[in-house]
């Protein structure tokens, strides 16, 4: 539960960023100031993509990370295939495939741009999260599991109440770095026409013929967001190291 509260803090921090951007961007000199709304809309979409893909990806990563450590061959096989596939192919290809190719395979897989991008991003970050969670689970001392089963907890109870909560703590640094990577990788959603932050930058820059200030602004916004995400994760990491 505490993790979720911290996650809540992280997104609250991002809301604060928007307030700052809302006031700071319009005050910027041309050609930024007059197009501040455009940048903010783009940044919002970037954050929406990151949020949904991040939450679903954490869930997927947890399931796959746990499955990879099971004795059951089918579970382990499915999880291993999933991580192999999504870590071994470019995210751009994954996004294009889900948006353009899946509807050809079956019309029931027809998604709008935003949904397709979220699915692709979630599947991709989930594959990386799976490895982080698996590593965390392996690092939980064996004595913790032994104590849990000795108290009569079932394997599932042991996972839910003992090993996973400890694995999450251990996995926070790699999970945060996956989240930061996800935020930046969401720029690939522009390939299917989603007007997220980097596509806004691209359009405004070619429209105004002033790439330097425009792209610097875009990069600056990304930097502010990733900095806040990393900073929000710091207290969590401290907790992992036992500095309560």
């Amino acid at each position: 539960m505490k993790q979720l509260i911290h996650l809540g803090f992280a997104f609250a921090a991002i809301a604060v960023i928007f307030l700052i951007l809302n006031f700071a961007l319009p005050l910027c000199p041309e050609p930024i100031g007059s197009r501040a709304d455009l940048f903010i809309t783009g940044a919002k979409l970037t954050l929406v993509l990151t949020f949904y893909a991040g939450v679903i990806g954490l869930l997927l990563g947890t399931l796959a990370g746990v499955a990879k450590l099971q004795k059951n061959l089918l579970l382990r096989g499915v999880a291993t295939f999933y991580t192999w596939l999504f870590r071994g192919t470019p995210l751009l290809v994954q996004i294009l495939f889900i948006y353009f190719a899946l509807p050809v395979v079956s019309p029931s897989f027809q998604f709008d741009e935003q949904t397709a991008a979220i699915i692709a991003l979630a599947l991709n970050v989930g594959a990386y999260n799976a490895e982080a969670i698996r590593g965390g689970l392996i690092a939980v001392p064996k004595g913790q599991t032994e104590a849990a089963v000795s108290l009569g907890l079932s394997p599932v109870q042991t996972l839910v109440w003992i090993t996973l909560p400890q694995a999450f703590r251990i996995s926070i640094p790699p999970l945060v770095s996956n989240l930061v990577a996800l935020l930046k990788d969401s720029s690939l959603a522009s390939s299917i026409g989603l007007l997220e932050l980097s596509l806004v930058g691209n359009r405004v820059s070619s429209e105004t013929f002033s790439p330097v200030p425009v792209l610097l602004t875009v990069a600056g916004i990304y930097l502010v967001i990733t900095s806040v995400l990393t900073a929000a994760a710091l207290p969590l990491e401290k907790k992992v190291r036992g500095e309560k």
Partner: protein
Amino acid sequence: MSVLVTRDVHKTFGTQPVLNGVSFTADKSEVIAIIGPSGSGKSTFLRTLNGLEKVDRGSIKVLGRDVANATDLSRIRGKVGFVFQGFNLFSHLTILQNVMLAPIRVLKLKRAEAERLALQLLSRVGIAEHAGKYPSQISGGQQQRAAIARTLALQPEIVLFDEPTSALDPEMTAEVLDVLRELAKSGLTMLVVTHEMGFAREVASRIVFFDQGKIVADDQPRAFFENSENPRLKLFLSRILKH
């Protein structure tokens, strides 16, 4: 009444035999000290009794249930507590939460009820004032006492102690042994793997000596220390009692 019976238990780690046919019986309310040199199989034997280690051959019956071939051990484990050398308290939970976990999840007690039980047990082992702390914030002796309280919370009929004081300094050893003494008086059936000869002599109703995966001697404390005929036991005792 026998609460624990093993017959001809064998166990091998790779090619290394650890248990070479252990047959053993414990009656209700007995306090049995298990001693022996390192690698003699005493801890492994203890771990087979609640299924933490699977045996290769032989039978284990605990409270009438077959442990050696059981598929679902969680029911029998509620009745057989286990206390570890390294405490193994759950590091992400407070002491109180450590003790409350099994009553809530296994015995399905209400939270308030589990908390009352936990606090009562924590004061019984003398660490109620540390209930809100995390395991890393208290001493080893306090951690082991918390681990004992955690085990007692399931109201077990038998508790297995695997070298409960081996990771502790003498002062902390004493405080844990005090708790064990009190438990022994309460009528709990206890199996204690230990190197504390004084404790074994004073508290145990029986002492069992393991060597090379077998029970070599099994007697009442007085007879055990005074009339030991077995040369290996004599050698072990002479080495350990010198210090």
